[in-house]
């Protein structure tokens, strides 16, 4: 086997050194009845040529955004990935290394994470950030739990404009912590200050808000933050990091904890995983952050160096009293995020945000002109996504678009029965006017057919 260097000869010599006569002897510590003697019922082995053909065959069975213009978003986005990202994350010093527990030989990963933390803070306008979480959904759940612990309260106020999957994951997580999610049902695609105020109680530990929200709409984050704080609750936001090229950062509206799905920052869509959870908060909560944190220090010669720090929060030291059970996070994707933000920079990220904004508005405007189509929330400002009321079945509409070589939108009916014929469409900077016009034409045709 090409991945196992030792040969039969090597194995024989090693067995002799150990004083055993066969590989089977290595398993004598396992009681005989528990040893597996058959052949596993899994596929037969593939040689390397066959393996390569196999994955390429499978890959071709998928409709990738490489082949078709993609107007699907809803949490995973087809943003441009500059070639620097692959060039750096493809360096095996990074991707084949372990968690940097030994800082003397891990300064590369450690410094890149320190930079990632700083970039996260800069982007969000926050004080401190951790080294990453699994994804945006679990980051939000961790933030909610942390907020409850900080507030000493047990209720979370959660508008239904937050990504429904995030709310599902949140429910799953907090249920076991004996925390309660109070869902705030909204209208017109926006969370109102009044409704939050009305729903808050003295047991509300935190108000959660997604900005822009799941429908792409821009919420009144300032107003809701103020109401949350007035009620003694924390304010936890979940943001689209690309939108922060243009939108007010959460630090400026006094968010206490901010999380985000960072996939857009140079990470592949990858059929939804792995992803990149960002997590930031105010300095005063630093020692309550879940997961890993890298800090600056000096080495024996007084040189600046980086090390995993505040480790007593973590599971391997604090065990059941740790701030979270998270161990492995997504260091390589954090690196991707750092390379992405370094490459895009101050001007580039702003431009990405502006292009997405303008193109989304062009698409929405054109679509709204088609008979039978309209914007579901015409009064809500939006960033790069918007909800369209369509004249028919959205699954069929997406099929129609695919037949035209276009990846359509997200069907809202499943989570929002009142938006049964509505489609959430997304337009990133990658989409050209021609592609948008083709989408509009295809939508118009569908309308004609229905």
């Amino acid at each position: 086997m090409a991945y196992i260097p030792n040969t039969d000869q090597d194995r024989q010599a090693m067995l002799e050194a150990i004083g055993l006569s066969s590989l089977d002897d290595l398993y004598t510590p396992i009681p005989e009845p528990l040893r597996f003697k058959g052949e596993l019922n899994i596929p037969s082995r593939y040689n390397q040529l066959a393996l390569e053909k196999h994955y390429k065959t499978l890959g071709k069975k998928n409709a990738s955004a490489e082949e078709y213009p993609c107007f699907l978003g809803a949490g995973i986005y087809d943003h441009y990935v500059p070639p620097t990202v692959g060039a750096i994350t493809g360096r095996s010093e990074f991707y084949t290394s372990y968690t940097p527990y030994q800082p003397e030989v891990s300064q590369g990963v450690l410094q890149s994470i320190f930079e990632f933390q700083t970039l996260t803070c800069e982007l969000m306008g926050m004080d401190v950030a951790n080294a990453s979480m699994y994804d945006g959904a679990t980051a939000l759940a961790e933030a909610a739990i942390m907020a409850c612990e900080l507030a000493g309260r047990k209720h979370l106020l959660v508008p239904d404009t937050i990504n429904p999957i995030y709310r599902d994951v949140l429910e799953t997580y907090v249920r076991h912590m004996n925390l309660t999610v109070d869902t705030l049902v909204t209208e017109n695609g926006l969370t109102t200050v009044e409704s939050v105020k009305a729903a808050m109680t003295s047991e509300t530990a935190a108000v959660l808000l997604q900005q822009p929200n799941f429908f792409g709409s821009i919420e009144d984050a300032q107003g809701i933050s103020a109401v949350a704080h007035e009620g003694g609750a924390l304010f936890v936001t979940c943001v689209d990091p690309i939108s922060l090229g243009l939108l007010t950062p959460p630090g400026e509206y006094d968010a206490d904890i901010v999380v985000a799905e960072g996939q857009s920052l140079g990470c592949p869509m990858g059929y939804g995983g792995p992803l990149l959870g960002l997590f930031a908060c105010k300095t005063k909560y630093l020692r309550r952050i879940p997961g890993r944190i890298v800090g600056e220090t000096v080495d024996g010669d007084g040189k600046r160096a980086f090390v995993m720090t505040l480790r007593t929060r973590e599971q391997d030291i604090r065990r059941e009293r740790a701030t979270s059970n998270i161990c492995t996070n997504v260091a390589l994707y954090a690196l991707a995020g750092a390379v992405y933000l370094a490459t895009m920079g101050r001007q580039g990220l702003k431009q990405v945000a502006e292009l997405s904004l303008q193109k989304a508005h062009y698409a929405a405007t054109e679509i709204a002109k088609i008979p039978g189509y309209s914007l579901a929330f015409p009064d809500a400002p939006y960033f790069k996504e918007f909800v369209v009321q369509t004249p028919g079945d959205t699954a069929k509409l997406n099929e129609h678009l695919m037949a035209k070589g276009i990846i359509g939108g997200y069907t809202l009916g499943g989570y929002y029965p009142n938006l049964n014929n509505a489609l959430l469409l997304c337009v990133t900077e990658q989409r050209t006017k021609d592609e948008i016009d083709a989408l509009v034409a295809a939508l118009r045709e569908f309308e004609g057919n229905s």
Partner: protein
Amino acid sequence: THERLLFEISQPGRLGVELPECDVPVMSLESLIPSAQIRKDLPLPELSEPEVIRHFTHLSQKNYSVDSGFYPLGSCTMKYNPKVNEEAARHPGFARLHPYLPDAQTQGALEVLYDMQNIITEIAGMDATSLQPAAGAHGELLGLMLIKAYHEDHGQGQRDTIIVPEAAHGTNPASAARCGYKTLTVKSDARGRVDLAHLKSELSDKIAGLMLTNPNTLGLFEDDIAEICDLIHGCGGLVYCDGANMNALVGRARPGDMGFDVMHFNLHKTFSSPHGGGGPGSGPVAVKAILEPYLPTPQVVKTENGFVLEHNIPKTVGKIHGFYGSFLCILRSYLFILYYGKERLKDVADNAVLNANYIRTELKDHFDVAFDEICMHEVIFSAKRQQREHGVRALDVAKRLMDFGYHPPTIYFPLIVPEALMIEPTETESRQTLDSFIDAMKQIAEDIVSDPEIVKSAPHFTPVRKLDEALAARQPCVCWSPPPVAV
């Protein structure tokens, strides 16, 4: 030489990318976004493409990795990551695949997931698998949620305690806590296994289950496992297997056959998805049929019309991941397993265990073996003797190994072995590499006697010297700030 931070390299006006002009009619920002929501300043660094590349290339050059050397890091299974799997993960048919496409457009991805559900189930000796957990600890959390759901579904809501051995990974008690459980620690016996007497004494109808790593964190097979499972089952609990050490067993023994009810795998350990400097990982959870009704949604099923994401699982614990798990990691591991196939998968375990025992044999006269018997995929030495006689600690040995070009082993874990040095060679290292490593360890053992100072002051040849870790924790600086501007 020291690498400056991105922010220190940044110069106003530099560009790392040229983006297109806007090709649609441009509307004024103010007409689209409420003014309170428009950002005033974006304080990101500004670098050109060559500067970005050189910066991160420099950083990479300061980093140890499997591709640059032997990584005998116990409990972490730092094996070689085959390059074909990296190529596959970059294939646009996977890398640029949106998770919300209709199933008809993702049949290739669904086939990978479907096959992997079955493969993982079979290797575990279980009945069903969820691929969703994003890491081992995430898998533990899911496993415990499944146990909890099972008990609640069976009117056993009073079961509020999870038993964890004292040598367990820290994630075990932390995950139990996250699932709302109390934890109860059972001792290890003189043989390094679960103390059965102690275990028996703690059983009651408050016990929801036991979490156990097998082989355990001492690299020893829990040979009473059948009895342990019987005991837990006897009191109404379920048994969770922490699969972190599955590299010792693949194709040679199956947790399901031992009596475990639920387990997680670390694909980034056993099945070689790369560690990435600390993730992403992937922690699929395999279960016996009794737990299948509670699995998270969706599962992949095969129908006449192809593979389908099945969302209808009435008793599900709910969602624990936005999508279907760390798909690109699952893909890599899938290809890793297919490469070996049913015919050769046990070669992985055989060679991993052989390598560990070879190191045990060759080094046991130089460092004390914690438990001198046939070990599984890893072996734990103790530097207690060296500490007592020469004042040299396991930490010093670890740091000194860096000077020989090796990554240190895991140290001070498990806690029950004083001055532990936990060595896991994996199957992808050659006898020659092991011999060189053994020679280095012997040299260090000699130096400890003849020149302990050189060991205690190690490392000497690394990019930085030993760090002041206390300072980092005492005065946390976790985010760079611009230096104050001189007026």
